[in-house]
């Protein structure tokens, strides 16, 4: 398959108060061209760090292992210059907090067009393309609003501007880190729709980071479920949500309440989610797992293909599936 | 080391820059402010006087060529030189002298107090007559503070003094109060226009900076240099150093009004307890000289007294006998920071025999107020004698009525009153000698040291007169370049 992005055994160590912490541990998955891959997990599970590893903006002091190959280039070894050439043009990013991710002292249009301007496009052309792009992301009266400052935009408009900024140079991979978490439900639905539409039109692949299963179920084609910095399971969204191959995914799916029908409150998982800094031995999920065995406590389960296109990091995956 | 360097002085500029100890705030000679040395310094460059003291304190003619008293010394006639002119070319007549005098009285500044009931009248164009209700033999000396302005300058004339009409050797070019006074020669000066192109008197408060400026040649003449700096300056071949006796004595009054210091014996013992000889030798090797009178040797009325020898043993004994309260510290007040080391040494001497003293440096305003209110036990001043005449020192400060020291002695009062009105100079001198003896022997204060003024200047400047009070005369100065 034509994998645009191939992450192999990625591990990231970040400096912590008690020495380095392995926040990403042996994570592997692919993002095929034109497809949307969802990265899901609870807070602190390492979703953002994976996105940052791809675009090469990990925090100072991070130690990275493994390989990330993007269209044949190894992003971890290619050097800053090559990486900068890719950023914005081939790989772009939409971040979680549209409020803080736009420079408050620069006009929207300038920020959206910056990538083009840097690559030497003439001013008039940049302006036209910025207005066109803003128009495409549904900002009314785009020509005028391009001259606004971020604080004059509502949250939804700001996120649209971020999307315009990410899409303006026709990238082949978009990293979207919780693009709708900060938005109201009504706005969220519209922005998600827009993101999908643009992605399809542009033929770009997308790595979508979210902790919201509902969003994922609507947007992502493949899912990667993270737990405490490790992949718990992955596969196509439909199969993962429909027939989880990991007890954690199963519990997750169960705890999402339905809106239109009244559901009972799901039986909660016991305990609290593990954080990378204090990861339990063996399977990180074992203290909360109803199926945990002695083996789970001592042996780290590595993802294995448990069904065609389904990878699970559970010793008891077969039991879960059935 | 040569002069000049990068400091921006043109060698052949014929310009002299001087920096003394005094800050020139003000160049209105009559202004309310009293006793400002800076004003005096500036005044002497810009304005003429009837007579002025020379380096030894003797009066010499300035605008007036002669003066003489009437038989009863109640009036004095001053005869002006002929053909005197102000800097603007207008003639300087006796009317101007009278107007200047009237202005001084009108403003009612501190000097006005010297002329109680005195009036001036122009006899002719060149004769001015001063009349006082009582005989005043010291009048010519007192009149050295009368600077002559053209008539018609009002009392309140701030703007006039931006560029006043001069009667002295120099006229004002520019003036920044308490910073810099730049002057150029007065072409109409009776003694001939000074030869230098300009004379600048600049205030440089920091000693290190001042001496650095002297060494780089930015400043040509400097005076009031601390003694400790002088050896290094002496070794600089391009500089000349000289110290001139002043008319000032270190004067440390005791407050005889307080119980502890009532007795002359106690005061004398405190005096004996201080090793002034060593202190002066160590701290003022150049500008200090042990005093032997309340007055400096250059002052009229000076007469040497028996030196008070350092004898801590005797002092302690005397104090114990007199029941001196050793546990109560003396409040020793002073105003100017430069005297702090000297006074610390004095306190140290006293401490050796168990006499305690708190050294209180007071800010000028508070110092004067406390001085007059007698809120002190020992008061330090470097006390000059205006006009070089004992009258302005002993006569003014030591009578009971002056209420300056807490000391009151009817005998002394009588002597001083007599001396104040006597016309015969010999008689006056004799009376002041007797007065000095009483003051000295009763230890109204300690009179440890007569001070000199040290001058340091670049060798290429010459012809200026060193003055005992720190008022050098630049009317004949030349600058030869380097």
């Amino acid at each position, binding site marked *: 398959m034509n994998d645009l992005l191939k992450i192999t055994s990625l591990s990231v160590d970040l400096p912590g108060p008690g020495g380095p912490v392995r926040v990403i541990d042996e994570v592997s998955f692919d993002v095929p061209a034109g497809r949307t891959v969802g990265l899901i997990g609870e807070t602190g599970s390492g979703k953002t760090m994976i996105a940052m590893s791809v675009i090469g903006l990990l925090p100072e002091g991070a130690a990275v292992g493994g390989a990330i190959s993007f269209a044949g280039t190894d992003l971890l070894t290619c050097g800053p210059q090559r990486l900068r050439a890719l950023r914005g043009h081939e790989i772009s990013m939409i971040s979680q907090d549209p409020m803080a991710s736009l420079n408050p002292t620069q006009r929207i249009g300038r920020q959206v067009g910056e990538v083009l301007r840097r690559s030497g496009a003439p001013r008039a052309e940049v302006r036209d393309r910025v207005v066109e792009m803003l128009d495409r992301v549904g900002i009314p009266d785009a020509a005028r609003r391009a001259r606004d400052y971020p604080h004059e935009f509502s949250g939804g408009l700001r996120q649209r501007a*971020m999307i315009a900024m990410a899409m303006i140079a026709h990238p082949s991979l978009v990293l979207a880190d919780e693009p709708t978490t900060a938005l109201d439900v009504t706005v969220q639905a519209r922005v998600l729709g827009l993101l999908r539409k643009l992605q399809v039109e542009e033929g770009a692949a997308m790595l979508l980071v979210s902790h919201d299963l509902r969003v994922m179920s609507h947007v992502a084609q493949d899912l990667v479920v993270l737990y405490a910095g490790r992949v718990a399971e992955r596969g196509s969204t439909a199969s993962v949500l429909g027939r989880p191959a990991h007890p954690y995914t199963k519990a997750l799916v169960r705890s999402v309440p339905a809106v239109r029908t009244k559901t009972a409150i799901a039986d909660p998982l016991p305990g609290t989610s593990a954080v990378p800094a204090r990861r339990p031995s063996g399977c990180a999920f074992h203290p909360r797992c109803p199926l945990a065995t002695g083996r789970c406590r001592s042996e780290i389960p590595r993802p294995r293909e448990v069904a065609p296109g389904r990878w699970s990091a559970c010793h008891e995956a077969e039991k879960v599936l059935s | 080391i040569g002069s000049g360097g990068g400091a*921006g002085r043109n060698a052949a500029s014929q310009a002299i820059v001087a920096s003394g100890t005094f800050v020139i705030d003000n160049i209105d000679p009559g202004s309310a402010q009293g006793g400002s040395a800076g004003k005096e310094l500036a005044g002497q460059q810009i304005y003429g006087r009837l007579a002025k003291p020379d380096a030894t304190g003797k009066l010499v003619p300035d605008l007036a060529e002669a003066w003489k008293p009437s038989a009863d010394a109640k009036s004095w006639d001053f005869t002006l030189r002929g053909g005197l002119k102000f800097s603007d070319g207008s003639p300087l007549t006796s009317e101007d002298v009278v107007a200047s005098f009237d202005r001084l009285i009108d403003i009612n500044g501190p000097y006005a107090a010297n002329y109680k009931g005195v009036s001036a009248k122009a006899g002719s164009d060149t004769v001015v007559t001063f009349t006082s209700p009582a005989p005043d033999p010291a009048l010519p000396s007192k009149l050295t503070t009368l600077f002559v302005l053209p008539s018609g300058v009002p009392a309140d004339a701030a703007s006039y003094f931006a560029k006043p009409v001069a009667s002295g050797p120099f006229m004002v070019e520019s003036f920044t109060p308490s910073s810099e006074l730049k002057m150029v020669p007065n072409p109409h000066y009776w003694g001939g226009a000074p030869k230098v192109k300009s004379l600048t008197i600049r205030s440089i408060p920091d000693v290190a900076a001042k001496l650095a400026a002297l060494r780089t040649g930015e400043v040509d003449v400097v005076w009031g240099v601390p003694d400790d700096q002088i050896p290094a300056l002496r070794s600089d071949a391009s500089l000349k150093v000289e110290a001139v006796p002043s008319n000032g004595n270190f004067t440390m009054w005791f407050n005889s009004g307080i119980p502890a210091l009532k007795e002359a014996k106690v005061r004398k013992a405190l005096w004996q307890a201080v090793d002034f000889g060593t202190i002066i030798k160590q701290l003022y090797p150049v500008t200090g000289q042990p005093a032997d009178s309340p007055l400096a040797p250059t002052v009229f009325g000076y007469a040497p007294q028996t030196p008070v020898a350092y004898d801590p043993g005797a002092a302690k004994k005397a104090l114990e006998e007199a029941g001196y309260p050793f546990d109560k510290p003396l409040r020793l007040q002073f105003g100017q920071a430069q005297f702090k080391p000297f006074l610390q040494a004095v306190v140290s001497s006293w401490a050796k025999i168990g006499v305690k003293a708190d050294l209180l440096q007071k800010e000028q305003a508070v110092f004067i107020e406390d001085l007059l209110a007698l809120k002190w036990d020992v008061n330090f001043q470097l006390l000059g004698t205006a006009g070089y005449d004992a009258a302005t020192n002993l006569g003014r400060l030591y009578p009971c009525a002056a209420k300056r020291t807490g000391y009151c002695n009817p005998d002394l009062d009588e002597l001083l009153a007599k001396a104040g009105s006597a016309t015969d100079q010999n008689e006056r001198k004799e009376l002041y000698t007797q007065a000095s003896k009483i003051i000295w022997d009763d230890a109204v204060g300690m009179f440890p040291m007569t001070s000199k003024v040290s001058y340091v200047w670049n060798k290429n400047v010459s012809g200026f007169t060193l003055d005992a009070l720190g008022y050098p005369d630049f009317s004949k100065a030349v600058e030869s370049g380097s």
Partner: protein
Amino acid sequence: MLTLVIRRLLAGVVVLWGAATLIFLIVRVAPGDPATVLLGPDAEPAQIAALRTRLGLDRPILLQYGDYLGQTLHLDFGDSYRLATSAMNAVLSRLPATIDLTLTSAVISVFAGLLLGSAAGIRAGSGQDRIVTTLTIVLQSFPTFWIGIMLILVFALGLRLLPTSGAQSLSSLVLPAVTLSFPFTAIVARVARSGIAEAMAEPYVQTALSKGLTPREVLTGHVLRNALIPVTTVVGLQIGALLGGAVVVENVFAWPGLGTLVVESVGNRDYAVVQAATLTIAAIIVLLNLVADLLYAQLDPRIRAAS
């Protein structure tokens, strides 16, 4: 924007009134009588009384205060008896030198401070940062008079490059301005450093980097302007502090500035000049802060909009 200006001006008027009152109070509470100081120890009580009347010091304090406020409104602080000129003239004669010194050292400091601050802030926590930060602390840690005298000994006396004192030529401005800029540079550098470090940590910097900008482009294009915002406030405040707070440096270099004028006038109880000088300084400071505020608003569109 206009609203902001008017609001600030009104606040400024209140501040100036407060400042005028404060200085009036301090000066009156102070021990030591101006008439006594002016006339010296030899004056007679009658003379002192006469001068007190002339100076208006015998009037009830509230009347004096009223007069004083009235005068102040007319920028007329009365005459200085010590300087034989109007107090305002005395101040005006010192103002140019003060402004020369202040502006020069401000320019030096802002330039050097921004340079140092950028070097440190762009890589917060790095060795470079620590070196610069330490340097700024050292800069700030030496008494200015000590630095001043050392500079005189080296550059004026030793190398004969520059004049020691006075305010005659441009070259005589160098040493005092440099001396004065030592602590000021440190302050600007520290504020710029924290501003830049803070801005560097903002998500929009990540955004800019994710667009492929080089660190230098990020610094000049995105960070500096935001980091300048706190710097303007501090510079506004500190230039004001330099106006009269440079007394020590003025003293060392015999620089005829406002600070020395205040010190001398305080010593001489020259109320008129103390009041004129401090209020002039206060007015300039208030004005500078206003300018800084406006600049601030200009730099930060959010504030511009809010006003």
